[in-house]
């Protein structure tokens, strides 16, 4: 339900972003020294870059930081003290592509699931405002339409930016959290009938741009029958087993819990991990249930398109294309999905 719409000229975006940064951290698309777009915490409003498409680094770090302190501790003989970190500060994620918003939904599903909701995640999530951004052009490598995600869709956002003609953005306020941004947007004029019509037209155009969707049900069905297929050899052989795809995936959330120590002080931290690493499943005894890259490559696809859907009824892929761009061996998940979808008859194990 759209509460209100304001119009912000692109030249005034720094003013808007600067006001957003009052009292909260802001994660937004930025361009680094190499010209690479990455989601990064802003230290100045001008850093937010509106020419970025899908930044190489996803926004998941806002909710699942690369390093998250569960608690700190001090040890001495016979005594240990544990101190939890301070509560997370309010934060906003700015400029999320609708597929990145869908990715947040995936994370929400996993981390709020019973029997043990992930308290640190939920606390962070509760103080996070999501400001999405519509894209009227389809970004290269992005195949979210094939997964049913419309790049103009504002669903699940607290606020949403729609690009308008004459270098302007419309800011749609969609939730109470969005309305709480009032001090940042109230200086900008409300949208008139013409702009509202333009927004509606942009949405209509986007919806009309049809791409044949992937048959996710067929993919899930086929995956159940091809666990021992030769297909996995073709997928894993070029794969070098690095973590680029997983670390840059907006939904990949597997993590490790590690100790960071200095003398008798330390912290127990959550750090990113990936099913692509041999160490991920290796027991202390040396036994490893996922022995080779074949099992690990398979696990990644199965987790995204079968196990995840089984449990949470939502694919763990949003079609952002980051893994395609990042893969050093140029494995392409679109090709893999197509192949799985089109298996005329499921091969027998």
């Amino acid at each position, binding site marked *: 339900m759209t509460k209100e719409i304001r119009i912000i000229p692109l030249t005034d975006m720094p003013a808007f972003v600067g006001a957003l940064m009052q009292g909260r951290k802001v994660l937004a698309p930025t361009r680094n020294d190499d010209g690479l777009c990455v989601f990064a915490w802003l230290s100045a409003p001008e850093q937010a870059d509106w020419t970025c498409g899908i930044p190489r680094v996803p926004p998941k770090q806002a909710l699942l930081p690369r*390093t998250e*302190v569960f608690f700190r501790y001090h040890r001495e003989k016979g005594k240990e003290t544990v101190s939890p*970190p*301070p509560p997370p500060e309010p934060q906003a994620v700015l400029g999320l592509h609708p597929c990145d918003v869908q990715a947040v939904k995936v994370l929400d599903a996993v981390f709020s699931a019973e029997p043990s909701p992930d308290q640190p995640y939920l606390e962070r999530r509760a103080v996070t405002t999501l400001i999405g951004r519509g894209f009227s052009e389809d970004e290269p490598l992005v195949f979210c339409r094939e997964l049913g995600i419309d790049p103009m869709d504002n669903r699940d956002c607290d606020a949403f930016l729609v690009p308008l003609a004459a270098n302007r953005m419309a800011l749609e306020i969609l939730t109470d959290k969005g309305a709480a941004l009032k001090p940042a947007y109230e200086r900008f004029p409300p949208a008139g009938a013409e702009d509202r019509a333009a927004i509606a037209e942009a949405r209509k155009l986007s919806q009309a741009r049809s791409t044949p969707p992937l048959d996710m049900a067929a993919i899930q069905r086929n995956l159940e029958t091809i666990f021992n297929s030769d297909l996995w050899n073709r997928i894993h052989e070029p794969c070098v087993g690095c973590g680029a795809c997983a670390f840059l995936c907006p939904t990949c959330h597997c993590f490790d819990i590690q100790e*960071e120590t*200095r003398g008798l*002080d*330390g*912290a127990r*931290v959550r750090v990113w991990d990936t099913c692509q690493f041999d160490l991920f499943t290796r027991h202390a005894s040396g036994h490893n249930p996922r022995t080779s890259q074949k099992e690990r490559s398979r696990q990644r696809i199965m987790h995204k398109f079968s196990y995840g859907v089984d449990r949470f009824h939502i694919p763990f892929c949003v079609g952002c294309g980051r893994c395609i761009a990042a893969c050093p061996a140029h494995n392409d998940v679109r090709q893999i999905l197509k192949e799985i979808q089109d298996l005329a008859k499921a091969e027998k194990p």
Partner: protein
Amino acid sequence: MSEQHSEWQPRILAFLCNWCSYAGADLAGVSRLQYPPNARIVRVPCSGRVNPGYILKALQEGIDGVLVSGCHPGDCHYLTGNYHARRKFRLLKELLDFVGVEDGRVQFSWVSAAEGAKFAQVMAEVTEKVRALGPNRRLAKHLVRI
């Protein structure tokens, strides 16, 4: 930890070869030679045993300076350990210099079992050089920020 240089004392890790420098340190002690007490000593079987990783790890954990000391060329208990060490450390030194780690954070010496006085002098020089550099900030890990 205070960074006031007047209060601050450098912490130095010294890897000493069992067959020479470690005995040299012993001799310095027995001879009651004075030298700065800033080094913690790790006895190793040979300077060749010192993995460059040990040095990097020490710096990462916040040690301000590292000394590796072994036998003079030609005197290695295992014949060639110190020669191998010399090549390895030369490479490490090139690398650390090139990435911008201050000259003097990692130092090397040859001290024989008979050179108690040299050991005391090396310790004094190493300590002063590291003291002049100030605390190690470059490779040190800052226990995870929240």
